[in-house]
Structure formats: C-alpha cells, structure tokens
C-alpha cells in the first residue's frame, strides 16, 4: 500500500538510510516508471539496508510538499519519478543543497540551464529499445500493418514511437506503423477498442504505450487469439497474455534508482545528468521470453544492438527525426 516504512528498518538497525520516492499523479500501480522505481527502492533496502518510503501525490500542487516532506523526514536519497516533477524537484533541491535527489525521466537544471549538483537526472533512450522491438515486429508481421496505441502524445511516447517505426522500416520497408492515441493513460476500455480497431483493419501487431490502458490492449489480443501480437513498453508483460506477448522495450528504472542509492551509500553520489541507452543496459529488449523469438530475428536484433552501441545507427527520437531517418539495411 501507500508506504512501506517498516520493511527492514527494525531488522537492520546499523543502517538508518531512508530511501524515498515521490510519485507523480499516476502513482503506484502504473506498471510503468512508478512501479519500477518502487522496485528499485525495494532492491535498495535489500542490498543497502535502511527503509523505503513512498510518497504519492494526488495533485501537482503536492509535489513540492511531498519532496520537502521527504527531505524533512531525513531521506537519504529522494527520487522524483516523472517529468512532471521537474520544476518541483528543482525548487526543493535548490532549497536543500545538502540533500541528494534522483530525477527520473527528466533533467533538473538551474535558471542558466546548468545541471544541479545535488540531483542525478536520469533519462532513457527509449527509442533504442523500441528500435529493437521494431525489428522483432517488422520481421514478425504477416500483414505488414502495425498499430501503435499511445496514451497521450508526450515526448517519451514519441521516442518509443519513432524508434519503433524506424526499427520496423529497417527490416521491413513494406510495413506501415500507424500511431493513434487513447487520450488518457488510464482508460483501458477505450484502449481496447482502439486496439480492436487496429486488428480489425488488418494489423497483426499493436504496440502498447498506453500506460494503464495497456490492460485493454492485451485483452483485445487475448480475445482475438493467436496471431494477434502486442509489443509492450517499460516492463516485460508476458504474464498479461503469454500467447500474444511479442516483446517489450524495457527501461531499467529500478536499476538506475538502485545505482544512485548505492552511490549515495558509498559516498560517491554525484549530480548531473545521465542518458541511459542500450550501451549502458539502461534500456533493452525484454529477456523473459527471449527464447520464443526465432533465431534469425534475434540475429538481426543483435546486429542492430551492435550498430546502435557503436553509434553506427542513431534511432530517431522524434517524428521529425523519423522523417529523415535513413533506414539501414540489417
């Protein structure tokens, strides 16, 4: 539930670390970065001791309050999850220069655009992971028609989309990827109808970047049965529909949180921003069902991974970059 303040504190009195995270309005249970950050918090408790504390925000006006509350309550590292917290986190970090913060999915800078010394900003190259899922999808599709269901049109969603479409194009120039949006990250019923629409129009793969709405996309695929695939994001979601889950572009939010917390425990915490991609294992292809993906496809995925890490391929992060992206042949 809301707070897990009792996890390990009593057993390990040697460490009085308090690992705190402040969610955005979506809160826990988003099956996305909030849940992943919570995982990182739990891992921190396991490996470093101390206790975890989650402060969920009901509204945007509470971000500052929650972050400040975290600092006041003696938080060792306070993780702000989501780009919506940027302004609030900057404000609180500047007011508490001695406190340590991690910001997920956005970069905290001062008025002059300089990174704050006490904030580790972690962003991800979602487009690199989704490029790989695009390769899997492009080689799997039999109808050459692929749907993309986004919750809202925000930059992270567009990074997923652009990388994915580029990945598809690089292995299957005949296939089309059509984006569509639900208008919310929480309306699974509408997301389902949108996915059904794609499948009905002849798509056999739908990519899910619909947040909580993903539930509906998986349900649509399950209902239609074999041959209707879902490509997902953030986490592996095999268990939602084992027969329809194709692959997922995952983000290692948990690992990043753990890494920053560990650095703090070791006394090596440093501010500044990092952008994690394939080369840092910050993003990647879902490994849970990797053995179900045919070897020839995996070959291409590996080739692309190499090309991306070496900088040979730079997957597009925006629709504009996608326009001008020259699909390499793999």
């Amino acid at each position, binding site marked *: *539930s809301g707070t897990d303040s009792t996890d390990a504190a009593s057993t390990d009195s040697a460490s009085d670390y308090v690992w705190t995270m402040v969610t955005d309005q979506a809160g*826990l249970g988003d099956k996305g970065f909030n849940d992943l950050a919570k995982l990182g918090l739990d891992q921190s408790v396991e490996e470093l001791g101390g206790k975890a504390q989650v402060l969920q925000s009901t509204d945007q006006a509470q971000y500052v309050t929650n972050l400040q509350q975290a600092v006041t309550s003696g938080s060792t590292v306070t993780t702000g999850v989501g780009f919506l917290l940027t302004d609030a986190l900057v404000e609180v970090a500047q007011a508490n220069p001695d406190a340590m913060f991690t910001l997920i999915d956005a970069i905290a800078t001062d008025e002059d655009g300089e990174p704050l010394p006490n904030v580790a900003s972690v962003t991800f190259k979602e487009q690199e992971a989704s490029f790989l899922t695009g390769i899997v999808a492009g080689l799997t599709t039999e109808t050459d028609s692929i749907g993309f269901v986004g919750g809202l049109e925000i930059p992270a969603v567009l990074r997923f989309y652009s990388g994915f479409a580029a990945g598809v194009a690089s292995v299957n120039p005949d296939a089309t990827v059509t984006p569509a*949006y639900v208008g919310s990250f929480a309306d699974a019923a*509408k997301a*389902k109808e*949108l996915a059904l629409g794609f499948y009905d129009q*002849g798509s056999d793969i739908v990519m899910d970047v619909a947040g909580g709405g993903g539930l509906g996309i998986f349900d649509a695929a399950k209902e239609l049965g074999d041959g209707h695939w879902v490509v997902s994001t953030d986490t592996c979601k095999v268990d939602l529909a084992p027969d329809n889950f194709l692959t997922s572009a995952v983000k290692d939010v948990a690992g990043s949180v753990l890494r920053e917390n560990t650095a703090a425990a070791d006394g090596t915490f440093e501010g500044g921003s990092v952008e994690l991609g394939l080369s840092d294992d910050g993003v990647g292809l879902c490994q849970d069902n990797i053995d179900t993906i045919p070897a020839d496809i995996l070959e291409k995925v590996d080739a692309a991974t190499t090309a991306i890490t070496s900088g040979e391929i730079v997957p597009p992060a925006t629709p504009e970059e996608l326009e001008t992206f020259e699909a390499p042949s793999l």
Partner: protein
Amino acid sequence: MDIFSISLVLSAIHLAVPIILPMLGGLISERSGVMNIGLEGMMLGGALSAVAITFLTGDPWVGLVGAMISGVVSGGILAVLTVTLRGNQVVASTAINLIGAGLTAALVPIIWGIDGTTPSVPKIPSLEVPGLSGLPVVGPLFSGLTLVDYGAIALAFAVWWVLFRTDAGLRIRACGESAESADAAGIAVVRTRFLAVTVSGVFAALGGAYLSIVALDAFQAGMTQGRGYLALAALVFGKWRVWPAVAVCLAFGLADAFALRSQIVAPQIPHDLLLALPYILALVALATFVGRTSAPAAVGKPFARA
C-alpha cells in the same frame, strides 16, 4: 480501408453499454426526485466488487451478482443520506464519488498486495448466437456481444416498461414530479424514493462491472474515467426519457469509436481534437435540434411530512 464496418458498430456498443447502465440508474433515481451525481463512485464500487468476487469464486456471473450487491450498498447509503436524512443530494453524491474512488483504489493493495491493477480474472464470455453469427455483414455483431450487452438493452426495456407502463412507474414518476401530490395520493414517497435510489446504485454498479469483467478482465483504480458524469449528461440530453437517453449513449459510443478509429485511417488530423469531437457534436446537437430541457419538477427537493 473502410472505417464504417460492422466492427465499428460493435465497438460503439462496447463503449456505450457502460454509459447506458449508469444512465438508467440515474434515470430511475431522478425520476423519483433524487439527483444522483454519485454514479461514478457507485460504478467504481461495482467494478471492484465484480473482480473481487470473481477472483474468489472463479465465476464472473457470481462476480456480477457481487457488483449488484455493492450497488445496493452504495445506492443504499445515498438513499439514507438523501431520502431518510434529507441531506443535500449533490453533497451526498459527491461523498459517494469520493469514497468510491478512494476506497476501491485503497482496497486493491489490501486485497491483492499490489497497487493499481488487480490480477486478471475470468471474464464474461461473448456469446455466439447460433445461426445469426454466421450471417454476412452483421454476423460479427452476433458473436462479439455478451449476454450483458443484450441484458443492458433488456434492462433499458425493463426500466422503460416499469417507469412508463406500470403502476409502480406512475408512483415513482409522481414522486419525482411532486412529492406532496404523491403523498396526498397515498403514495409512500420515502419508501419509493429509497427504493429508486438503491436500484440506481445497482445499475451504476453493473455499469462498473461491465468495464471490469465484461470489457476487460481486471480492476484498475479510476477505471471509469468520468463515465458516470457522461451518463448524467446523456440522461439530461435525453430529457429523462429512456429511449432518447439510450440513443444518446449509443451516439456517444459511436462518436467515441469513430474518433478512436478515424485516427487509424486519418492520422494527419490532430487526435486531441478528434477525441473532442463527440462532445462538440453533442453541443451542436443540443444547440440546434434538442433545445429546451426540464428536469422532473421535484428533483433535488427533499421530502418531509409535517
């Protein structure tokens, strides 16, 4: 590709039913003289109960019954607040919405130990109507709907029948038009309204259950996404009459389905604006040919005997 396929109609129905059911609930309640803007909270209660009971018993039909029981509870609470205690109907409904949204979200981690979304449960299967599902063009309609979809239309018919064809309906409507007149005619106003408000909870809960175990197979915090308010709008739009209001719900469903799917064929139109289309169309319809609306005269007025 053609967007105007039978599956668009199917999609429209799927999107309309979870508005139709709470709308019918609101209609019953308001026809009896109690404004119910607590449909949203009641829906969430029904959605969660359906999943919880299905999770326990493995049978979604039992889950549906569980939802109905939760509707009796939430409707009953509203009835106690508004009819028995004569509290302000809008304030009481707001309480139902707050409690409904909060409690359902809070119970998920308490019951399942995870936040936000429950695990999948068995859902109510769609029904192959023998013979009809094989028909050309309309065939998919008869394989893509569940008993609950047909049930919703049956319930609409039942509500219409009871409200406008039977003695009980005349009593309910009399309470909604003038509690004093109904009282003078020997109608038990308090009992009638209590019953109507409680039943409205059942309908709203069924609407929530539709989302969680018919359309989907799990509960998600806040999954109703304002459909309770939309139901209220449809009810007013339909001038508190059953079939016009059902038609408005279907139109909302169709417009929604259209807005979603037209993105697939016309990705160049800004989708945010497409998604606003159903509401803009509704306004245009209201402005042009719907016009004057007036609520049952006694809605909002508590009744007390001297």
